């Protein structure tokens, strides 16, 4: 049940003539298509190919929240947490309305035992999806539910 982002708008990159992406003449459509190819490999578990694509996209457009978010997700999956956090932090700076980076940061913070930071990101991800329909935000809900059940099981009321 892989997630489908509800926000499919701008990729938030620059792509103007001054940027590397602009100088190379990579259109927004082409940039998105490469990202989608990376996503295909990511879903198939062919992570080296997905990573090569996402890293290339970050390289040519460091102002793309989408590229940082995707690379941060992949690095979360491979448990390269320090590097993942750098990209996820940048993604949040560039697009505070995107849910995915909050969810992945929360996962890292849970694994690191950083409760306050994890809960703050879970709250943010959940607040951005009040209709409870976004799979990424629902992943945050699942994490919150798991933590709540664990706390209750440990006797915390």
């Amino acid at each position, binding site marked *: *049940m892989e*997630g*489908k*982002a509800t926000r*499919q*708008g701008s990729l*938030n990159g620059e792509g103007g003539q001054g940027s*590397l992406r602009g*100088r*190379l003449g990579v259109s927004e459509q*082409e940039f*998105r*298509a*490469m*990202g*989608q*190819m990376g*996503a295909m*490999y990511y879903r198939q578990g062919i992570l080296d*190919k997905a990573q*090569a*694509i996402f*890293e*290339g996209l*970050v*390289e*040519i457009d460091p102002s793309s*929240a*989408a590229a940082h*978010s*995707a690379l941060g997700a992949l690095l979360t999956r491979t448990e390269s947490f320090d590097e993942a956090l750098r990209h996820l932090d940048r993604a949040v700076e560039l697009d505070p309305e*995107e849910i*995915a980076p909050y*969810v*992945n940061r929360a996962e890292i913070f849970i694994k690191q*035992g*950083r*409760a*306050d930071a994890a*809960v703050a990101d879970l*709250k943010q991800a*959940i607040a951005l999806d009040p209709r*409870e329909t976004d*799979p*990424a935000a*629902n*992943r945050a*809900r*699942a*994490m*919150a539910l*798991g*933590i*709540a*059940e*664990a*706390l209750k*099981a*440990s*006797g915390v009321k």
Partner: protein
Amino acid sequence: MFGLGKIFDSVFGKFFDSIGMGWLGQALALTADIMSGNWVGAAQDVFNLVAQFTDSSWMNKVASLQPLGAFDGGGCFGDILSENTLGRLFDSAAGEGRGDFGQFFSALNVVQDTLHNGAMVSANRRFAMSSQAV
């Protein structure tokens, strides 16, 4: 910690496994002692968060992998990334100097391999269909 293993071996455990989040129980156990850790301080926030869920229908639509964001939506890239497009991008990147775009060259190589493999699959499919037709 008594009940933690129980929870993650239970119905909830199956739910978390089914959405690729079996790691959650282990991660919480690894925080050493959930009772003494900073989770207790965050407990009220977590309970309040869970209390706001309207029902359980969201549980049927959970991302089973770490979500990517804007690239998650899928879509058809084959119409946009053609051999011609790729040739143009390779030429542009080469013109700018390969040293500046090492990672982008690697990305283009993956795209090129993918298109090539896709073309091979299509050719094989056409060949198979034409063979059946004979």
